[in-house]
């Protein structure tokens, strides 16, 4: 079996069907499944991101709040006694010293007087510091640096019994906050205020110890949107985040947690991120987690690219597989089709070769058997026609002979009436003789016994001879035959057969011209052939009829041709003869406007 790998030549309907079906069945479900998988992955991935960011935010919020609350917690002092007198100075120093030692984040702590009465003969102004320890004064500050905090909000709030924590302020040591706490006695009366300055470096460390994927980060904003801490130091910027929509919403008290709170936006550092955040209400801070989208979605992008790549590979494989499959199925069918066409043309010798090892091969074998059977039938038919024609020839010739003798008066005078009948029989017999001769010629041609003796000859002589023979017939019908016999080269042809051809074609031209008319015979040299045109002004031939004109027994059946006799074999025989002389014959015609029969013969090489 010979394959013709025309991969990209999708001719034929079955091939197209197989191609589309294969591609559709293989790629379609893949795309649908890929779509569903990707959609699900995308959706669950968003939940995962939200969960990871929320966990981080919640964890860090707890740590940050805990850090500050722990310090505030140790500032909540209560004494056991009921007296409304401040804590003794020595105790104050002790407490402050211990506070600073045990809380490294504490930059400064001070006791502030809240009692206006004279104590031990001494009157200390309300709001005045009475003891102070700090990183600057690790052994306690002297009273000449004590300041009066009575006007400060921190003191005023704590003096009323409320704990105060102030806004973040930024020092060269880092961000800090002020706190102030009432010192209460057993009766919950405020006997002192304890103030402190907390260094938020510990908070910065908490934030810096954050991990979010490969490049995600966490940052903490103060009430005014300034950066307190960032997990990536390189991203620390000085400007306020208050104009950034995400941060501004958080600083207003909104929470941005969960799948509903998560947002995708461009960060202030100019990259697309997935952001989540929370509001730490106690301090008015916002904590924000941002995960660069290309890092957060890495898994999704990877899966997406894999799905696309896989689909592409499957699609290409499906294309090739479908073409191969279609080719495998369609090719033998095409072979059978070609064989069928050959059989329809009467060619029974060439068998089909199909080796597919399946039912199509069985079909090929059956087809060959059928062809062999048809060939045998054709041979029998030809033999029958030949024998029948041959056997018929003798009696029809005898009939003609005897009827001629009767008309000649050999057996006595013949009455007018009898003569008339006999002449009718003679005409009918002549048609029978013509039919027998034609059948014999066809039979010989089919059997390959039609002899052609090709020689170089001048076609003009043949034409003139035939024109001369048929002129009486054309004159009867008032048809003029015009022959343009210019100088033409010789042709290779059988003179006898050529005469038969010319008799048939010119005879047909006369026969199928009703009433008067004209027949023009001319020649034309084209390539290595001499073409002879016989043009009439007859009834013309329809386009449909032209297709079958040269078939056996075909005659044009119209109103105009009803009375015109013929065997239907003339043109078939003419075609056989011309083709055996290596020529071609064709017709150009239009109904009602006449026909031009043309045939070509090879020019004789001189």
């Amino acid at each position: 079996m010979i394959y013709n790998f025309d991969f990209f030549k999708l001719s034929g309907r079955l091939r197209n069907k197989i191609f589309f079906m294969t591609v559709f069945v293989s790629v379609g479900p893949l795309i649908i499944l890929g779509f569903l998988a990707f959609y699900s992955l995308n959706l669950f991935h968003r939940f995962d991101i939200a969960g990871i960011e929320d966990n981080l935010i919640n964890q860090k919020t707890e740590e940050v709040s805990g850090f500050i609350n722990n310090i505030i917690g140790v500032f909540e002092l209560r004494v056991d006694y009921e007296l409304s007198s401040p804590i003794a100075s020595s105790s104050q120093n002790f407490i402050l010293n211990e506070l600073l030692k045990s809380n490294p984040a504490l930059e400064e702590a001070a006791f502030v007087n809240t009692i206006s009465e004279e104590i031990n003969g001494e009157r200390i102004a309300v709001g005045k510091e009475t003891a102070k320890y700090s990183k600057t004064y690790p052994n306690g500050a002297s009273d000449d640096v004590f300041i009066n905090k009575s006007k400060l909000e921190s003191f005023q709030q704590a003096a009323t019994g409320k704990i105060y924590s102030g806004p973040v302020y930024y020092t060269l040591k880092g961000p800090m906050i002020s706190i102030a706490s009432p010192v209460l006695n057993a009766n919950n009366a405020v006997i002192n205020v304890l103030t402190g300055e907390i260094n938020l470096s510990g908070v910065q460390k908490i934030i810096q110890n954050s991990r979010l994927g490969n490049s995600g980060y966490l940052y903490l904003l103060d009430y005014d949107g300034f950066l307190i801490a960032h997990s990536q130091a390189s991203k620390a910027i000085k400007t306020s985040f208050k104009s950034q929509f995400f941060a501004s919403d958080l600083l207003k008290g909104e929470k941005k947690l969960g799948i509903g709170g998560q947002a995708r936006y461009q960060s202030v550092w100019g990259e697309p991120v997935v952001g989540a955040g929370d509001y730490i209400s106690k301090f008015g801070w916002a904590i924000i987690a941002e995960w660069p989208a290309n890092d957060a979605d890495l898994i999704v992008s990877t899966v997406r690219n894999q799905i696309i790549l896989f689909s592409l590979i499957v699609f290409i494989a499906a294309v090739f597989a479908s073409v191969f499959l279609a080719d495998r199925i369609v090719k033998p069918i095409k072979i059978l089709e070609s064989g069928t066409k050959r059989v329809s043309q009467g060619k029974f010798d060439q068998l089909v070769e199909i080796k597919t090892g399946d039912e199509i091969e069985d079909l090929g074998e059956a087809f060959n058997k059928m062809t062999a059977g048809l060939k045998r039938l054709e041979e029998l038919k030809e033999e029958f026609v030949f024998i029948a024609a041959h056997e018929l020839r003798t009696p029809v010739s005898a009939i003609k002979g005897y009827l001629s003798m009767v008309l000649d008066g050999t057996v006595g005078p013949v009455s007018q009436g009898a003569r008339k009948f006999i002449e009718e029989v003679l005409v009918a017999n002549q048609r029978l003789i013509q039919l027998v001769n034609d059948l014999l010629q066809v039979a010989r041609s089919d059997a390959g016994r039609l002899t052609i003796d090709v020689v170089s000859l001048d076609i003009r002589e043949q034409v003139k001879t035939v024109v001369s023979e048929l002129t009486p017939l054309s004159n009867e019908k008032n048809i003029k035959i015009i022959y343009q016999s210019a100088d033409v080269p010789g042709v290779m042809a059988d003179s006898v057969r050529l005469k038969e051809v010319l008799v048939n074609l010119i005879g047909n031209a006369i026969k199928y011209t009703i009433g008067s008319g004209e027949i023009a015979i001319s020649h034309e040299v084209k390539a290595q052939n001499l073409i002879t045109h016989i043009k009439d002004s007859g009834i013309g031939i329809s386009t449909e009829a032209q297709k079958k004109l040269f078939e056996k027994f075909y005659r044009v059946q119209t109103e105009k041709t009803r009375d015109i006799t013929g065997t239907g074999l003339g043109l078939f025989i003419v075609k056989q003869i011309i083709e055996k002389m290596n020529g071609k014959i064709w017709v150009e015609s239009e109904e009602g406007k006449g026909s031009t029969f043309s045939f070509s013969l090879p020019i004789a090489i001189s």
Partner: protein
Amino acid sequence: MANNKFVKPLFIFAVLVVAAGVYFWFSGRSVDIVNRQSVYKPTHLYGNNDVSIEKIKLMVFYAVPGDRSGLIYGKWREIMKKPLEKISDFHKLQFHGGSEIDYEIYPKPVILENSGSFYDSNNNGNAKALKLVAEELEKRAFKKNGDLYLENFAVSPRGDYPVLGIIYEGFGAIGGVIEESGLESEQEFAKLKNLPESVIFKTSVESANGFFLLSRGYLSEPEFEFYGQSFLYHEFAHTFGVQDYYDHETGLAFSDDIMGAGRWRSLESNFISSDILKELGAMN
């Protein structure tokens, strides 16, 4: 040639494939929302949007009265340089980058024309010394025919806010804004600005928009070791209009920042309150 009846299904199939591909590609991408860009607001003089203090050109002199030239502090340049660097860092931090100080120290001590008694006073942070020394420096260092004139030093870049800083070999800690006015008297000006007359002085200084004077001791003496730099910045802050946040009579502070109680704290632990920063345009 492909049969025509497959063209339509093929087309629909191809469209579906392309649509699926587009969805695959874009559904994983972020939805970018461009943030609203903040309208840039430059930092400015306290309570006055029209005068920018984004770039402050601080020209510092070590001024020594004529009769105290023997008391010139040997390491005068060193004791000035470090605090000036520190207050520059402090200033940039407090303004979140919205204002910067470009300081320059006059290359040699300036021996003033008169003796200390001419400049000194005991009240008001020695405003007298500030006025007289500044005017003398205006004449000598900022006029082309002055004996102390240095073109590179005296000319401030266009757009900068020029401030004159005087480290004085004598008593003093004061600072203020120089404002051009057509009014004749301090009284009229005080009334216009709703300020006590005692804090208003007429001056002929043209080369600076603000000036301050601080005693050299604050930068060199051990007793001022912890808060001397804070005092330096405190006075400097007056040059762009920030007022004291403490009562001059009682000493009671209204704020804990460097303009109030915080001036007694080291500069490392100091800050400017958000209320003041808002008036300076450093915060929304």
